């Protein structure tokens, strides 16, 4: 079969990308440019003043607390991504191989939970984890001291909320990836004497990598913007970047500062994704070389 070489000189190809280009231009590039332009303005009497100076950026780079919050956000996002991935791999594998009979039911339940409003779920966790909540009540009933679990309004509670709300993204992408693995390859590995664990590590896991990467990237990007979990479950004492940006825009009515912090968060996210991509590429090349 002859391979068709696509080139940007092809008018039909250019035309077919036009809707996507328009969409991206209108709803991504232009807003991003406007956000960048906004960051060079000032405010007076809580109104935007077109000043064109670097005051806001000087503030951003001279105030350590912005970077403390950005760093905390990055770390929380990384931990959340790792936790979601570690939890999702056995769940996805179990759904497909060990609990395949109930796979559809489990998927349906997960979709139901996934589509339930995040506010409702997060407040549900507050009732569950509270000192006088369901968890502590149950523990007390079986002999534990009162308020044995004191996790609500801590960064750990934020992490529980983040993992709970974002886990389905990794489960579904990894499950999809695993479902496409040729079962004969695993059987061949077992025939060659590999244990079930070894077959999983040497065959299933490497072949599921695209799904694992996709899930990790999705969760990482979404983790950078979490707002509800640190505010409600974390008790607001360890604010993350989204809260900082909200405060700049709303409470302080400082839109240029909010715009600058938004750009900083986007750059941090993009830089982290570039590192992710570079690692993935390096690993793929190493495997190909071996």
């Amino acid at each position, binding site marked *: 079969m002859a391979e068709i070489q696509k080139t940007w000189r092809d008018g039909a190809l250019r035309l077919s990308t036009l809707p996507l280009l328009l969409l991206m231009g209108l709803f991504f590039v232009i807003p991003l440019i406007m956000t960048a332009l906004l960051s060079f303005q000032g405010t007076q009497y809580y109104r935007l003043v077109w000043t064109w100076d670097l005051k806001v950026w000087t503030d951003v780079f001279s105030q350590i607390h912005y970077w403390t919050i950005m760093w905390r956000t990055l770390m929380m996002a990384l931990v959340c991504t790792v936790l979601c991935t570690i939890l999702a791999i056995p769940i996805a594998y179990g759904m497909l191989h060990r609990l395949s009979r109930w796979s559809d039911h489990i998927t349906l339940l997960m979709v139901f939970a996934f589509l339930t409003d995040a506010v409702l779920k997060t407040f549900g966790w507050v009732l569950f984890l509270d000192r006088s909540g369901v968890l502590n009540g149950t523990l007390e009933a079986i002999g534990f001291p009162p308020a044995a679990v004191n996790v609500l*309004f801590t960064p750990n509670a934020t992490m529980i909320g983040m993992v709970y709300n974002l886990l389905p993204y990794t489960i579904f992408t990894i499950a999809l990836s695993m479902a496409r693995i040729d079962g004969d390859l695993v059987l061949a590995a077992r025939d060659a004497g590999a244990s079930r664990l070894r077959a999983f590590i040497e065959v299933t896991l490497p072949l599921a990598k695209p799904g694992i990467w996709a899930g990790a990237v999705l969760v990482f990007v979404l983790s950078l913007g979490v707002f509800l979990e640190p505010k409600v479950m974390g*008790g607001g004492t360890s604010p993350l970047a989204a809260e900082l940006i909200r405060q700049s825009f709303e409470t302080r009515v400082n839109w240029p500062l909010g715009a600058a912090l938004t750009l900083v968060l986007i750059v941090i996210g993009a830089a982290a994704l570039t590192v992710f991509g570079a690692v993935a590429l390096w690993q793929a090349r190493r495997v190909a070389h071996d």
Partner: protein
Amino acid sequence: MTKSKGIPMFSPNRRTFLQGMGAAGLAGAGLMPRSAQAATSMKFMCWEGYDSPDIIKPFEEANDVSISIDLITDSPGGFAKLAAGAWRDFDVVATDSPWVQRMGPAGIGEFLDDAEFADVYESFYPQFRAPFAPLDFDGKTTGLPTRWGWVGPTVNTKYDTLENWRSYAPCFDPAYKDKICVLDWGDWPIMPMALYAGIDPYKELDDAELNEIRLVLRALFKNTRAIVGDLSVAQKGLMDGSFRTLIGGGTYCTSALRKDGQKEIMSIVPEPKDGLKQGIIWMEAGGIVKDPVDDAKAKALLRDLTSPEVAVKLAWTEATCNLVPSQKAEALFTDEQKDVLQMDYMWEAWDKSHFHNVAPNIDQMLEIWSQELAAAR
């Protein structure tokens, strides 16, 4: 009065454009609702309670006007929206009084003639009558007071005594570690802490004073279990005793619980410390946005919101119950309502409080809050 300047037909604002398009479409389809057939359409930005059909519907019918509501969840956000250009779409706003006052210098509000509202002021308690400084800008009135209350510790007397909270000192007592809940409501929690530090936050502050505020917030965060923006989370903790007090909320987070029969929950104002009052009076106000579509009807809405009959409805809503400036309304409240609203305590609270106003250094204080919070854990 129309918002369009110059040649109106060539300079429509977004509202007139959308209204025209919508009306044309609906009329064409024969689906025009009755309210849309009103002579005037107005847009009202407000807090919950003001949107009650009990308040809006009778006004619409009496004035041949259709009102669309835009509910706000935080006053600065509402102001920012107006200042960013949405003032062209709105007619009346009811929000926290400093933000109504700020509409003056921002040039997005209409000034009111006190003489025109003389009868309204006459129905108010003397404390709210003209000339009313908190809503004054440059000698001109920016709005009319609508609801009020005080900011002080909110206490569940089932778990703690009011005596303990005659001062903010327990906020810094290790015995109260992880038992304090601070409400993340903009500058509301900052002001009481500044007052406790011996600083009047409503005057121009120097670096040393700002540093004192930094230190007191740092100490507060050490004892704080949660900083919440959501009222229900704060109220739940207060009811089950996991929070001994709510700081920065006051009557706004008390009255709905008291309405539900939980009279053990009260908001008080601490005693003056070193000659400095420790309480804060918050107030909501109604103002007219610059160039309303119908100036007379916008004024009529303000007049309606401050009338004794409507003031009672405004005081007694599903989510919160609050005091109103109308003295004439007091006679319309039942004894139970007066008890829920802690009306027997209101003037004591007033006497021990500063009026919440535009603080000159508010942005620096919010930045300090943000800095100390980032470093807290």
